[in-house]
């Protein structure tokens, strides 16, 4: 039984805020095997971004992390600076949400692509050659000419492809994708997503994708981690869109997607406002907005437990699934 590639054990992260130190994610506990593609789903404030970034320790100055984040058995949090640098890029690559902001606007795309290779000792010609080849692979035409251009001369979709190329250049085993298509228009979204999926399969990569879009998650990923207010509420490899989830929040999210195939009189939304880890109440963080809330829910935080092959953090999960809950 091989150890999982990525392992989060009792991870909690606190940040310094205007009101003092606050917890943004608490008691994270999950594993990712090599070759898996996992979606990290949640609304803004759920802590999904900081969870993904913690994998390469890309955290704000004031962040303090408890617990262990293990990559191939080694704790990322204990790594020295050099080790961390060797981790970022060649082992784990990250794709950012807004390519126009994430790529230095005053340096050429060629500089951007070859930068990492150059610090590894690769010569300029060689690095540019590899960059050109990869640009071709991701569908950027006239790659050689493109190397001399600046980011503002690229469209959003093209620039995201450049970002993907830059991540691939380092040849990582894991890709973290932070809402890679949110900043793009719908048609481009589909293209870029397809590209990402293709490459993942081709290179047998492990993927952790952050998204708020359940359908996107279902299309590309085999497993979904649903986060709310800084904790994981459901960890499932079922096809949530077809089968539904076990946690009330997951189902509420599914319900609230606007449907194109049916007529809706009213758009369904979850009552109340999404809460971040900082403002999470005691007990189950979703309880205040939950249709199935009982007194015990607010008493103490429900642990993530295994139910029919899915981990879920809800004390009433069986009842709800069986239809016997109010």
């Amino acid at each position, binding site marked *: 039984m091989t150890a999982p590639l990525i392992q989060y054990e009792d991870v909690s992260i606190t940040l310094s805020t205007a009101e003092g130190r606050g917890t943004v994610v608490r008691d994270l506990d999950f594993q990712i095997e090599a070759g898996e593609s996992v979606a990290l789903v949640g609304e803004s404030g759920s802590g999904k971004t900081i969870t993904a970034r913690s994998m*390469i320790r*890309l955290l704000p100055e004031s962040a303090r992390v408890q617990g262990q984040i293990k990559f191939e058995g080694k704790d990322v949090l204990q790594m020295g600076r050099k080790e961390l640098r060797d981790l970022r890029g060649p082992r784990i690559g*990250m794709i*950012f949400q807004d390519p126009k902001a994430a790529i230095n606007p005053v340096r050429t795309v060629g500089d951007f692509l070859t930068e*990492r290779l150059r610090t590894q000792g690769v010569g300029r010609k060689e690095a540019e050659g590899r960059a050109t080849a990869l640009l071709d692979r991701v569908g950027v035409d006239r790659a050689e000419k493109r190397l001399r251009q600046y980011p503002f001369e690229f469209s959003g979709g093209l620039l995201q492809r450049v970002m993907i190329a830059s991540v691939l250049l380092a040849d990582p085993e894991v890709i973290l994708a932070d809402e890679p298509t949110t900043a793009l228009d719908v048609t481009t979204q589909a293209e870029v997503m397809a590209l990402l999926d293709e490459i993942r399969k081709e290179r047998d990569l492990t993927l952790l994708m952050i998204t708020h879009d359940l359908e996107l998650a279902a299309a590309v990923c085999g497993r979904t981690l649903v986060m709310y207010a800084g904790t994981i509420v459901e960890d499932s490899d079922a096809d949530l869109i077809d089968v539904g989830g076990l946690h009330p929040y997951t189902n509420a999210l599914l319900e609230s997607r606007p449907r194109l195939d049916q007529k809706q009189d009213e758009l369904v939304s979850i009552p109340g406002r999404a809460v971040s880890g900082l403002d999470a109440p005691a007990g189950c963080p979703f309880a205040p907005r939950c249709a199935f809330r009982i007194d015990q829910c607010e008493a103490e935080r429900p642990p993530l437990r295994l139910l029919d092959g899915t981990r879920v953090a809800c004390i009433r999960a069986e009842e709800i699934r069986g239809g016997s809950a109010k």
Partner: protein
Amino acid sequence: MKLGASMKGAALVMARRLPGLLLTLLVSSIFIFSAMYLAPGNPVSALTGGRQVSPAAEKALEAEYHLNDSFVSQYLHWLGGAVHGDFGTSYVARGQSVGSQIVDRLPTTLLLLAMASLAVFIFGVLLGSIAAIRGRRTESVITTVTAVGMGIPSFVAGSFLISFFAVRLGWFPVFGPGEGLPDQIYHLILPTIALALATLAYVAQVSRVAIGNELNRDHVDTAYARGMGGGWVIRKHVLRNAAIPITTVCGVTIAFLITGTAVVEQVFQLNGIGSLLIDSVISKDLPMVQGICFVAVIAIVLINLVVDGLYGVLDPRVRR
């Protein structure tokens, strides 16, 4: 090939700015030229500083400045001369050529300006980056220090420096520009500090804000996420990008330094153009004042042009 593109970009930006700068030059030169008409009294009295003038001398002045021609033609004569460095002769200085006086006293001022500019930009940016990169404590200390520094005029700084370092400690000479380059530099150390102090503080503030903003940008995150080392990221991404807003204040800063030489040269009794300007104002030597102001305007305009070119090199986005 990339250098070529940058140069081309710089040239493009400079060409775009040129008409505006030429207009500035035109308007200011007209204003400077009109000084003798704006002054109370007639042009001749303005040129002679109100002194008694023999009829022959008066005739000579009228001829030299074409005072009986139309305004436009007078201006053009003056401008034509000015462009060649010929600003006429100074009646007050007994017929000495204004241009030659300026050239004589130029070196001291240029050296002072060079030293002050280096001090301002090197130490200013350094201080600003330290403030932006280090923790909150360092930042607030530097912010407070620069806030005070910005309020210290050059003549106050100069007075203090002289009284403490020259008179009391005897480490530096009090007055004079010195002979030979090393000695001149030695003599100019205190004047440089006096001139550069407030401006350095300002540049430090600007740099701190610019670098602080840049540190928070997404592309810096990306660089770290790819495993680029701290030093590389700071140099190639943070400082490189922050250079753009810092360059924006370059022109204003150097113009300020140029003007400041007038004050500092008085404090330290340096025989540069600054003190020549003040002496001429006091002795009512209008042609000299006009000449010096014109040279100052040209210098400022040229510097603005160069700064714009630099901007074009640093920021490819303005090239299109």
